[in-house]
């Protein structure tokens, strides 16, 4: 089992969510985060002057996925999240040791 973690643009969340759902991958968890990377920060207004903010709002998507499916999911996310401009983000994959469904106590694949 794998955990897929994607850092994406907030404005792509709608499309990514829909794309996943259409392909049958409904389950996911979403967190509002802030990030910095290659994309440069934004300039904000303060009354008569301006200032820089380097942390930009991003969305973190977490999906626990079967070993057979994670590559497909990564691809769906990548396509739906892509704008082609710096700041589109990363998708990271981690090993999972165990997963348990709270409601039933099922473990492993059965818990997904």
């Amino acid at each position, binding site marked *: 089992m794998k955990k897929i973690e994607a850092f994406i643009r907030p404005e792509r969340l709608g499309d990514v969510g829909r794309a996943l759902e259409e392909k049958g991958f409904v389950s996911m968890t979403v967190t509002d985060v802030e990030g910095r990377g290659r994309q440069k920060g934004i300039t*904000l*207004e*303060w*009354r*008569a*002057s*301006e*200032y820089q*903010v*380097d942390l930009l709002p991003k969305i973190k998507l977490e999906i626990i996925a079967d070993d057979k499916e994670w590559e497909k999911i990564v691809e769906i996310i990548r396509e739906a999240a892509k704008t082609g401009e710096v700041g589109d983000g990363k998708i990271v994959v981690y090993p999972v040791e165990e997963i348990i469904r709270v409601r039933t106590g099922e473990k492993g694949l059965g818990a997904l």
Partner: protein
Amino acid sequence: MKKRWLRSLKPFLAFTGGIFYLAAASPAYAQESSINAGDTAWVLASAALVLLMTPAVGFFYAGMVRKKNALSTITMCFIVAALVSIQWVLFGYSLSFGPDKGGIIGGLGWAGLAGVGQAPNADYAATIPHLAFVIFQAMFAIITVALLVGTVVERIKFSAFLIFATLWTTLVYDVIAHWVWATGGWLRALGALDFAGGTVVHVSSGMSALALAMVLGKRKGFGRNTMEPHNIPLVVLGAGLLWFGWFGFNAGSALASNGLAANAFVVTNTAAAASTLIWMLLSWSHGKPGTLGVATGAVAGLVAITPAAGFVGPVAAIAIGAGAGLICYYAVLFRSGRNIDESLDVWGVHGMGGIWGAIATGFFASKFINSAGANGLLFGAPRQLLIQIVAVLVVSTYSFAVTWILAKIVDAVVGLRVKEQEEEVGLDISQHGERAYAVR
């Protein structure tokens, strides 16, 4: 636990009722013959409007600080309303408007509002109850002190602020109010025009803010850490309520419900509008037309028209408002280029806006608008302009100097600033034991 001195106040508090009562035993009897109900209705409504400006300033300022200091900012404004209200009844009104002592200060004859009652005092307002005048003026004292909060946010110790605020109200506000507005006050005698507080309220608080910021020092991380305004809708709520309340401030200063009040109302709205538009255009020419800028522009226009509201017409109001937008914009830009943490630009907006307004009054004032006023330069009376400049200089110098001294004294005695770690955690937790917003 540790605050035993506070505990020891309790028996004293219980005693208070008894003592104070004596002073109230013979309140002024109502002689309503000369009271005009319409004038009174307008002044009472105006007093309520001006009271609302104090929480409004609290929201205006609180929205601009970081989340961790939001409550501290609001609470300082709120507590000022309480503190100055009591000071005013006990002795502040008497110092400001009481029987004149040599043009410098009022005597204590009206302390505890002794002899101040429901009948009008013809010296100040012949058609409304004296008490209506008292409370309308009380609201001005409150808001002026609340303006100072903008310069001390995010780092002042709450106890030190309370002490400073009490001293400042008494030694700066009450004194200047006497000079400019009281029967016998020397600047009033000189002929200085200040319809609703350009010098008394705005120049005094603006210049004091500068002195106070210099003594207090910069916030930790100033110029290095991002200090993003945490809630701009809250700022607009403040600005909206300020605009609303300012009608009471300026049009209420006619102390009657008449043509002059209507004139003051119209020019107040017009100047605010002109300044807002100018600020928008200027910030657009340098970047984007931000909400904070637009809201600040409105306040700048309202400040500048304050001294002039009862002496100029609507077209002059456009000029005064536009000038305010221009001057305050560059004042704020100038300050943000310096290394002075006059955090929310009380000097740039109220100080410079008030100075511009007071001087502009010397230009645009006209007896066509107010026969009890005076003509300004444009109506052939250059002397009035000079008087206005003198008033501005006197009020600026006095308020800057006395504030500096008071701040130094309070700093020496109790310490003005919180500890470094308290500042980092935020004043909401460290001074008030609260968080503005719960996580869930």
